[in-house]
């Protein structure tokens, strides 16, 4: 009897790490959390026995976890930086592999009561750098502009800073909120607000048209992002240490399959294929 218990215990001790390892961990971009979770749910439903764990925290957090070896896959809404690549190579002797899994338009949110419906990149730059402080200056009502930005660990923050501010700094009065959902919530409640974030989140707010290279304003819709007419769009990546293999590869293949890409549209992003 005692022997049997001891055997069972020993088996549990040996098996527990094996079982724990069976879960594929995915960590990173807050923008991609909803999408990744939906993929994981559907994938696990189709393949019982497979386990995918998805957590957010921001693109930088995900890539840092990839470097530290605490996650299998890192979601990132920005390209991996060269120094991060070098760190992965130094520690694991492989280069990180990049897979684009979807496309996202960075949408601009304003309150539904706001009269402004279209802005140029230059106007956006002036607003977010604090040079334009009243809606009147960009064709709206006479009211102060309340700017919402993201924490600087967010990939969306970096993307916006590079694409719109051209490397400039956000206005000091820009409030930083911990997630896209928080920005949308703030813009839905604050009548003079402007904020930015993934297009998938826009509920209860108005999305602004952004003037593209052709001089026309475009909404962040599926066709406009896919065709590249909407100027503020970006690919969403999944990074792995070296070429993906095993369970992680099976999961990534699912994400890129027709079914996986259908989920992309469902969640509000744009398919890559």
């Amino acid at each position, binding site marked *: 009897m005692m022997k049997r218990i001891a055997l069972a215990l020993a088996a549990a001790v040996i098996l527990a790490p094996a079982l724990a390892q069976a879960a594929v961990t995915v960590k990173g971009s807050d923008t991609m959390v909803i999408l990744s979770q939906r993929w994981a749910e559907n994938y696990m439903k189709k393949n019982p026995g497979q386990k995918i764990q998805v957590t957010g925290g*921001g693109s930088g*957090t995900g890539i840092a976890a990839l470097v530290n070896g605490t996650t299998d896959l890192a979601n990132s809404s920005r390209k991996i930086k060269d120094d991060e690549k070098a760190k992965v190579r130094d520690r694991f002797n492989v280069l990180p592999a990049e897979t684009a899994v979807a496309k996202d338009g960075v949408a601009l949110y304003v309150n539904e009561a706001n009269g402004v419906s279209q802005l140029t990149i230059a106007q956006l730059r002036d607003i977010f750098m604090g040079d334009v402080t009243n809606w009147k200056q960009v064709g709206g009502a006479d009211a102060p502009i309340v700017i919402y930005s993201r924490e600087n660990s967010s990939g969306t923050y970096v993307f916006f800073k590079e694409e719109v501010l051209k490397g400039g700094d956000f206005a*000091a009065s820009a409030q930083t909120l911990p997630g896209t959902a928080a920005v949308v919530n703030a813009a839905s409640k604050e009548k003079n607000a402007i904020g930015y974030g993934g297009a998938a989140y826009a509920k209860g707010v108005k999305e602004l048209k952004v003037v593209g290279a052709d001089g026309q304003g475009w909404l962040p819709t599926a066709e406009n992002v896919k065709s590249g007419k909407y100027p503020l769009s970006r690919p969403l990546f999944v990074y792995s240490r070296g070429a993906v293999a095993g369970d992680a590869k099976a999961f990534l293949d699912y994400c890129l399959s027709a079914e996986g890409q259908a989920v992309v549209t469902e969640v509000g992003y744009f398919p890559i294929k």
Partner: protein
Amino acid sequence: MTATAAPPTGRAASTPSVIRRRQLREQAIEIGITTVALTGIAAVVLIFVFVGREALPLFTSPEIAKETDLGRMFLAQVWREGRPASYVWQPVSGVPKYSMIPLFVGTLKVTLVAMAVAVPLGIAAAVFTSEFAPRRLKEVVKPVIELLAGIPSVVLGFFALMVLATWLQTAFGFTSRLNAVTAGLALALTIIPVIFTVSEDALTAVPRSYREASLALGATRWETAFRVVLPAAAPGVLAAVVLGFGRAIGETMIVLMASGNAAQTTWSFGDSIRTLPATIAAEMGEVVFGGAHYTVLFFIGIELFLFTFILNSMASVIVARLVRRMSGSAG
């Protein structure tokens, strides 16, 4: 065996060997207690040393000196051509900017709002429960206020973010929903129970004879409470205020959620603010280990440490002076 040999009057076991044994036991207990007390001190010292070690490269590393130094952290800098010098906190940028001033101003503003609300409310509630409330009411009021201390700060922060912010904006017409007042009021809710509990204990500890003497001299209950009991409890009440202040300055979650986190140097309480602890919490997640940003965040930790240390020392000096003055006038 020795007990039987002991004389009848030595019932309390006073033979040398029993005394020695008892002395040994007491020594052991004393050593144990001292060790426990020293562990507490050691923990504080070790934390300080660790945080200090992580912040030290700020002064020694030439690489970090290229990005920032004390001058750039505390003095206004010209960051854009043709603009006046300003204090900017923009750690993730082509040219990282680490000015401490907006964070100081933000922390100070939110703490002031919280203290302005919590100190009068907390002390008044304590005076009421200890001096005026009938016992039944006291038994309800005290635990309920103390229950407030049990609400997790993230819940208070969420309440401030979703509900309080909207109320305050409609009531006062703030430009931004999340600002020093919103965060300060939510913060006050966490420090009221601290101030209340400690000052209530101090008031209750004032000897009955003080009250009786005052009433016997013809003073009213109000005069007794405010002119006799409250001054007599002043050291304890002051300690309560300092505890509350320490709690307010270090509170992270509420300000992170309800203050808007905009690092700006303005004196308007209706503006969004960014505080020192919220900055550490928001940015620690993604910094490069050992880089300038990382070091600066640890430096902020040191600053917070110093603030509370200075405050506590000042308070203990004032308390000592108050106690001396009062015992002097009594004697």
